[in-house]
Structure formats: C-alpha cells, structure tokens
C-alpha cells in the first residue's frame, strides 16, 4: 500500500532535481523579503530583534505560498494528474506523497536558511533553535493546507492571486503559533506550548487535508 506513496515521492524528487532552478527562486525570494524589513525600518538592533520572529515567519510563509502553484500545475498540463486519478491507488495517498515531496524540495531549504536570516537580526541561539523547530513543524502544515488551494485553483487564469486569497487566511493560526514560539523563547517564557500546538495542527492537517485535496482535484479534472 505504501509502495505507490514512495514512488510518487521519488518521482517528484527526481523531477525537482532535474530542474533545480525552481528551488532557488523560492529561496532567493525568502531572503529578499526578509532583508527588506531592516531596510525599511532602520538599523536599530533592539527593534529588529523584537520583530525578527514575525518577519522571518512571514517571509517563510510567503515563500512557501509562492511555491504552491508548482505542486499540481505541471502534472495538470501534461496529463499525468488525470492519470493519477485513474489509478487504483487512493488519490489521497498520492496527494500526500506529492505534498511531502513538495515540502522536501521547497520547505526544507527554507527551514535550513531561516537561522542564517535570523542571525542577521541578532536572535540568540535559543531563539534560533526554536525558530528551526517551529518552521520544521509549521512549513509542512503550510504545504498541506496550501495544496487544497492549489488544487482548487488548478487551470484557472488568475489562479495565483486567487490561491493567495484562499490560502493566506488559513495560514494565520500557523503563523501565530510559529512566530509566537520564537517570541516566547526570546522573552524567556519558553515556546513549548506553542510548539505543541503547531505539532497538533500538523497532525490534524496530515490526516484531513489530503482527503480535501483529492476531492478538489477530482473537481478540477471534471
């Protein structure tokens, strides 16, 4: 039962490795967005340290949203997506595989890059650790929730903007708990409770969103 899942992940990773440029676009976007804030706000270290968790998190969130469209659009265009709907495999399982592969390619690099950007803002080692863990728990949720939006807007002409409108409100809880965890660490309260909430949201999304995405894909291919 899990073999197709493994193969879908392997397939998508192979394709991603053969067109690496896409990964770098997301990463560069992340770096630029986060670097814009100090330029706009001014180089006051205390202010920057205060807003750093929020900025890095918003940057990661926007970058991950930017990458969303790529989950299904190429497969939709070349017909492999409709073939996936016609296989005897549960579509939700294939969706889970595709989202996981997408996260490995677009989410994990963000997580790895975030501490570097956090360092720019003078975050402490403790805060950076929490930042990594919160992103590690939060970004897969963003991909899972975003996949529903990506499936719903598949093949639409102004899909990108609509996707943002659909998905951003749903990202709010993840943002609050993600940035909150880092802030709590900075202020010395400890981010454990926030991280637990992020983990809970992740588990919930992991169970529910592939089903919703599968249903949305069926509608999109109708």
């Amino acid at each position, binding site marked *: 039962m899990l073999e197709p899942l493994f*193969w879908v992940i392997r397939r998508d990773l192979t*394709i991603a490795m*053969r067109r690496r440029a896409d990964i770098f676009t997301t990463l560069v976007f992340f770096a630029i967005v986060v670097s814009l804030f100090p330029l706009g706000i001014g180089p006051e270290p205390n202010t920057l340290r205060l807003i750093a968790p929020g900025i890095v998190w918003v940057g990661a969130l926007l970058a991950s949203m930017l990458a969303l469209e790529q989950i299904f659009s190429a497969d939709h265009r070349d017909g492999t997506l*409709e073939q996936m709907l*016609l296989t*005897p495999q549960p579509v939700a399982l294939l969706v889970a595989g595709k989202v996981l592969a997408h996260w490995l390619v677009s989410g994990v690099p963000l997580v790895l890059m975030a501490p570097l950007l956090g360092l720019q803002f003078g975050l402490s080692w403790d805060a950076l650790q929490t930042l990594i863990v919160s992103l590690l728990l939060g970004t897969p949720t963003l991909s899972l929730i975003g996949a529903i939006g990506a499936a719903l807007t598949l093949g639409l002409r102004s899909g990108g903007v609509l996707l943002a409108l659909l998905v951003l409100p749903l990202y709010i809880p993840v943002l609050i708990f993600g940035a909150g965890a880092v802030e709590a660490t900075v202020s010395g309260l400890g981010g454990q409770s926030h991280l637990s909430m992020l983990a809970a949201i992740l588990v919930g999304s992991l169970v529910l969103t592939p089903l919703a995405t599968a249903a949305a894909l069926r509608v999109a291919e109708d």
Partner: protein
Amino acid sequence: MSEGTTGPALQIDALSCVRGDRVLIRDLSFTVGDGELLHLKGHNGSGKTTLLRALAGLLLPESGEIRWNGKNIRSLREEYSRHLLYLGHLNGIKGDLSAVENLRIAAILDGFSLSESRAWEVLGEIGLRGHEDLPSKHLSQGQKRRVALARLLANDAKVWILDEPFTALDVAAVQLLQDVIRRHVENGGMAIITTHQEVAMIGEHTRTVTLGQKHA
C-alpha cells in the same frame, strides 16, 4: 459474451452529459461486452471526448448511469480503475523523465511492477529503440505518443478507452497500434476508441456509435 447474470460488462444507461450550458449527450444507452471494439464517431464538438471522460470516471454525468458488471462506477471507483486504461489527448508523460522511467512509474501507480528490462523490451516493441533513456521532452510528438501507447503493451487492463490514439503517429505506428488493439479485442478485452481515420482493424466484433445525431 455475457458474464454470469450481469450481462455485458460495461453498460451505459440513459446517459446525459452537459458541458457549460450545452447538452452534449442526451439519453445515450449502449453496452460493450468482452471482445468488443466500439468505434465512437461524430463530428468535432459532438461530445466524443466528453463521453470518453465520463466512461473513464473523470467526469460526472448529468444523469444516467455507467455500470461495470452491474455496479455504478461512481461507487466502485478504484475497483473500476483497476480494469481501465484511459489515454486522452494529453500523453500523460513527464518531459523530465525518460521513457523507461515514465513507463515504470505509470505501471506502479497502475498497481503492478514493471521490471527495467521489460520496460526496455516494450519500448523497443513500440518502435522507440535507442530513445529509451532520453528525457521525453526531447522526443518528437509522435514519439511521445508512442511512449504513452507503450502502456497498452505493458498493462493488462481489460477496458481500453482511447481518445484519438492515432494522432501524430506515422504509418508504421498506426499499423502497429491497429494490430495491438485487434489482439487485445481478440483476447477478450474491450476497447472504446474515437478516431477520424478509417479503422482498418474492424473485424466482426466492431460496433459503431455515432454521436450528434440519432443513432441506431
């Protein structure tokens, strides 16, 4: 031809399909049994592709039922997909993967494993010798079509639904595909195809359904 008491395996009963606000197919009924080839005819825009997508289960009909061994395909879903091979206008192959990789991943998703050597063999048979491990995006239209059609040889699905399978193929490939379809039907499979070419493979088991006019 009949299977037990359920009659022909694929039954289309009073099917109507709507695209946008246009009724393309109204009250269409027919059956396809084992070892039968159904040639779907009709002018452009008469709803052939729509009907094929409905038969594959990709498109929800407005009314009516499509039954596989007596059960609605909507309730069977994956159980029905197991017996089905649908090739639409899109080839369904990834340009970044080679022909072999495309064929093997398609096989795994279809629920069986295809060894590397068998994949090479099948691609040789369909006339892609020497192109097996090139990225498919470097292949010509006709060659891409051949990669898609290679699934017919690798798969043991019972129902083939082929939408304009002869498009972009050269004479030799058309001949080859006709043979492949004839063999499939002679071995008790079913095929439902649309094509504007005259189908030379027509044997005694071929039936024609014409859309866009009153059919017999």
